[in-house]
């Protein structure tokens, strides 16, 4: 069938923003749950937060913020038709994203080592509020981690598309949209950091 050629970059960005709204509401449900539980168990959340490694959390924040910057730089480079530089910045973003996941996995491993995971015998002996705290911690950072992985996959495709000129100076809305998604992943982390790591 004859597909009409239709291109609307503004429409594509609008669609992406609407999608980001759904993502924010998705996490919004968890934030509602978090606020209710924290209101119910202020002391337990304080103790739970003390178990988390704030230093690693802050390092990860810096890593993720920097990766957001490099995405923007990649878009600027494409706009200026500097393909190699755009690819270098995208590569840096990917590397930083992977770094984030590695640090995260060390944190999770430490929690598992200390028996602080849902259904763990040790966690079962702690007060109920702390059990909920760690339930939420794993759910929210886990879901965020999945978003990081999704973002990295999308950005890898973008790197490939830049390399094969499917993303080019006159046509880069896909890269822009991927960048928007990556910023969202970043923004959500900025909320997760104080809610969990700085809760103590």
């Amino acid at each position, binding site marked *: 069938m004859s597909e009409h050629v239709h291109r609307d970059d*503004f*429409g594509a960005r609008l669609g992406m923003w609407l999608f980001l709204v*759904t993502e924010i*509401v998705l996490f919004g449900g968890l934030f509602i749950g978090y606020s209710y*539980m924290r209101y119910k168990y202020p002391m337990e959340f304080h103790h739970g937060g003390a178990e988390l490694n704030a230093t690693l959390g802050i390092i990860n924040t810096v890593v993720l913020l920097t990766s957001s910057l490099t995405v923007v730089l990649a878009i600027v480079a494409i706009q200026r038709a500097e393909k190699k530089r755009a690819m270098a910045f995208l590569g840096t973003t990917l590397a930083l994203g992977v770094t984030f996941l590695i640090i995260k996995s060390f944190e999770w491993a430490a929690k598992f080592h200390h028996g602080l995971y849902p259904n763990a015998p040790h966690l079962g002996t702690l007060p109920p509020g702390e059990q909920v705290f760690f*339930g939420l911690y794993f759910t929210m950072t886990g879901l965020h981690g999945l978003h990081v992985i999704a973002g990295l996959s999308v950005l890898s495709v973008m790197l490939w598309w830049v390399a094969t000129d499917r993303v080019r100076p006159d046509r880069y809305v896909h890269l822009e949209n991927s960048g928007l998604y990556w910023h969202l992943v970043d923004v959500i982390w900025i909320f997760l950091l104080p809610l969990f790591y700085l809760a103590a």
Partner: protein
Amino acid sequence: MTTHAATAQPSYLVDTGKRKGLLAWLTTTDHKRIGVLYLYSMISFFLIAMGVGFVMRLVQLTTFQKLITAQTYNALFTLHGVIMIFLFVIPGLPAVFGNFFLPILIGAKDVAFPRLNLASWYFFMAGAILAVLSLFTGGGAPDTGWSFYAPFSLKTGTNVSLAVFAAFVLGFSSMLTGINFITTIHRLRAPGMKWFRMPLMCWALYSTSWIQLLATPIVAITLVLVILERFFGIGIFDPAKGGDPLLYQHLFWIYSHPAVYIMILPAMGAITEIIPTFAKRTIFGYKAIAFSSMAIAGVGSLVWAHHMFTSGMSNLATLLFSLLTMIVAVPSAIKVFNWVSTLYKGSIDFQPPLLFALTFIFLFAIGGLTGVMQGALAINVHIHDTYFIVGHFHYVMFGGTGMGFFAALLYWFPKMFGKMYSKKAIYVSWFPIFIGFNMLYFGMLILGMMGMPRRYYVHLPQFHTMHVVATVGSWFLVLGLLTYFGTLLYALFKGPKAEDNPWGGVTLEWTLPSPPIQENFETIPTITHGPYHFEQESK
């Protein structure tokens, strides 16, 4: 209105690409074909769920029966609810008529993201298949009811996880459709198609899309939490670990109440298209209807806890939610008054779509008014979890959305398929539908007032008479529905060719040939006036 000049371009039903037949349909990005794909799948699901409902009514023919076990009965009402809600009523009108007609009504060639549109249909089918799989795998068919309330949904051995995941996937389909429609309305209106020149169906779809966008992710995350709770025991809904089952109810209804408006708003939109066409005059109160759609979407998002008046909330909360519930009745009533005022002094051309549209208004009025009753706190305590609730929401969802769907199908069928159905047969089908419907669901309202609890698979002798009335009603209803669908199916194959404008409508779809050509418009029209501009009026 003149008939459309013979066009050189083939209709959208003809395969012109490399792929032919079924494969061409399964890979199509044409919004019209996708709408038809949805139509066929949804009517199939509807008939299955109707059969399940039919069996449930049969079970109630005896006070103590041994036809099926209690566990099977639980599975049946869960299945009936899940299929009807998630596979028919929620996606119903937007996915079928929204897809088919939204671009045409605003003068566009397709939706903003055609490939995403096809992906939505695949998500829909994947969700449907997962829902069916959940019946036969794991611990057996879920027995929680369609609302998957914690803590029971966390503890039951049946296959809740897969059913919940199916609903999650279906939510994705709904969200992506919402994104697509909003972008389409913002970006693809034809030149001169200003916001207040759009047909009101578009306003209804626009408000619906916003609810789909803003509410669906909440239920998505809630269902994910149920799955995580079942597999890993994260504890957020489990009181033993400090969680709170009431939080589940809140999160669930934050989506699922607005979802009621996802169901009803597009049906209202379709009714708003039908009434001016058969009254042959412009709609009364265009802006009031447009804004009432947005108001329903807005206020309707703030009333969810009226499902939880007996769940243990503070008095202040129940009071506020009761008040907001009453308020949401206002924009709905505005629409009803506008429809009736449009008919007043119109030159009414009585045709099957109008008959079903009027049926919609009648049944929806009963559904809406019984809804206000339940919003009142004192009455709610008495009728909570009784057949009254079941009767009420069938009046709204079936009498409202269902009849709206049937009316819309009658209205647009000639345009979609280029075939005309037998009007006589449709009139004949209407009588058993209307009589059976009211016997069945008004019977339920009475049963609920008498105290018959919902979801029980046996009943006490004092409820027996009304149960028999309701069951006999269900036979009439099924008979009428089968006649209705049979008539349309016959018309699809053997019906005479439909005219381009069989009803004398004036919105853009009636300027196209029946069925429309692949690109809808040979040249994009320029719009110079409002949508319901009837010639005899302007004289």
